């Protein structure tokens, strides 16, 4: 028996395939692009090919993410809150607070002592501080988004950014470059601003997060600078699983196994 989880996000479409014991056989991340049905098919093909499994061998598919209703053949569609929660509890058991920052939204999930979702909060009204925001800032800085984490190490004194609106922040970044502020300092300032905004969201569900086992998932968790800034803001270590961008798909596959295995 094989179980497939597909997470259709705004920036990427992720798939994870499990065997009957819940072991990860293969996972992939592909850009969602403008046509998410094509991205879904591609992610599914890639993961099946990597595991050497045919589509007929898949017992159940559970979808998640904003495009979860676009996945044909799904047995269930489950929100990304529940899937990320299920995934992180399998990868980093004992987590009491999860921060997930994806392409266009961010969320904080508080767990009870048994690992069940006790409460959650999501970003409101706009996508400031998410993957799209960082992409826009990287473009303004003329660097690759994947380089931001490393550039952050050079910014000993982070610059101060006053706006988190993507449009205004981009203008501010351009002005800072023109003023001769080091790229590393600007990047560190951006990461601090994201951490500050994320902390405000976290405090809506956990007034005092200090001392809690915290984990981070989502594509932005690849950015070590954001993780460091968030650790500093929270005053504790933020753990990141080996492949933070597939946590939602992995959780969806685990749910498929539990419900339909």
């Amino acid at each position, binding site marked *: 028996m094989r179980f497939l989880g597909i997470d259709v996000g705004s920036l990427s479409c992720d798939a994870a395939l499990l065997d009957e014991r819940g072991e990860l056989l293969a996972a992939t991340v592909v850009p969602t692009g403008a046509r998410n049905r094509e991205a879904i098919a591609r992610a599914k093909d890639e993961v099946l090919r990597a595991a050497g499994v045919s589509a007929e061998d898949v017992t159940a598919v559970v979808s998640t993410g*904003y495009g979860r209703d676009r996945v044909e053949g799904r047995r269930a569609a*489950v*929100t*990304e809150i*529940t899937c990320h929660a299920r995934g992180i509890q399998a990868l980093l058991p004992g987590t009491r607070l999860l921060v997930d920052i994806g392409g266009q939204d961010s969320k904080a999930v508080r767990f009870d002592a048994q690992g069940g*979702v006790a*409460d*959650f909060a*999501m970003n*409101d009204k706009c996508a400031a501080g998410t993957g799209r925001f960082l992409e826009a800032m990287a473009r303004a800085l003329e660097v690759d988004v994947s380089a931001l984490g490393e550039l952050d190490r050079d910014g000993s004194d982070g610059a101060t950014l006053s706006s988190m609106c993507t449009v205004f922040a981009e203008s501010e970044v351009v002005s800072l470059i023109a003023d001769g502020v080091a790229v590393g300092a600007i990047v560190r300032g951006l990461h601090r601003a994201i951490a500050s905004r994320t902390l405000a969201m976290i405090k809506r569900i956990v007034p005092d997060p200090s001392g809690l086992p915290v984990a981070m998932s989502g594509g932005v968790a690849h950015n070590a600078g954001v993780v460091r800034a968030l650790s500093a803001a929270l005053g504790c270590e933020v753990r990141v699983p080996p492949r933070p961008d597939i946590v939602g798909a992995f959780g969806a596959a685990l749910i498929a196994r539990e419900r339909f295995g």
Partner: protein
Amino acid sequence: MIGEYFSGLAHDIEGKLAAEPGAASARKIFALEVARLGVRLYSPGRPVAWCGVLAPFDLLNAVGVTSCFAEFVGAMLAGMGAASAPLEGAEQAGYAADTCAYHRAVVGAAMQGMMPVPDFLVATTTPCTGGLAAIENLARLFRRDLLVLQIPRAETEAGVRFLAGQLERLARFAAGRAGAQLDPQCVAAAVDLSNVTRALMVEIYDLARRVPSPVSNRDLANFGIVVPLLMGTQAGVDVARATRDELAARARDGKSGVPGERFRLLWVQNRIQFPNPLLRLLEDEYRAVIVVDELNDVTWEPIDPADPFPGMARRAIGLPLNGPAERRVARLRQLATEYRVDGIIQPCHWGCRQGTGIRGLVQRGFQELGIPVLNLEVDCIDARSFSEGQLRTRLEAFLELIAGRPRVRA
């Protein structure tokens, strides 16, 4: 446009009811009476007053003045999918886009000639200052007299006397505008009808409390906020009686409003007024039912027909939305317990300082009871800001959360 809409709606429903009298659902009767009220508002020759939400509509009905709270127009426009033009009109005239869209829509509608010119206006100082400002704007636009009811924040004997005196002066003023003297017998008759409607509303909400509840997500939408417009009239009694009878029949037959009721929810403050798929999602995919709205509540005692003004004053002052947040939170907690709800949906209507200002206190109040709360960032009137996918994800995640935790129903 709005007047024609009401005329068409009333005509359609009357035609359907004439063709098939047995098919008159309570909701249809409710819609018919609301449409007839709309027709009266938009018909020339009748005295009309635009009001704040806490105006004494039974008193105004008693003296022959057709009256309505201004926010009703914003809600109607949103329900018709026609709020964008007045909202844009108000914004182009300088009203900030982050103010309450109920008020922006009504000011825009007035500026664009979509509202009948009233004979006078009655503002109330509570529950929100935005509403007071909107009525003041309307008074200036229409160049009509404005009466402001100063509603005390606490129910003291002095406060009740203070407001009762204002209400009596309002009654004499309104009767004069309708071309008559204030007739205590007419007021007493209207109060009698109000008391009957009130008693029926108590029965309706008692029925809604049952497990499973006989109400669906639409049965009582906007009920408690709109029925006061019909207070003091036979129409109000008819609507409330039809609703009570329909829910009582369902309860007697063991039918729930949402088949297979799974989750019971409390909705804080106003519903989303423009067409959207969220209520259908709640019912069809999660068997979740809004068993109680905060505004579907009876928080006043029957009024003495022989001495109506103190009772009307107590009714306005005692509304939980008036006064300190502590009182409102306490009432919300009581409703959650009485209706045995599994979760709270708190739509934080953009621009509503009244609602969003205390959302943290409301949330903590429920959390102390162990009841989860979903804060929905949404504009209940302005569909231009509506993102279905985002709201859907939050709602679904909330219901998944409730499903995964032990029941804490009282």
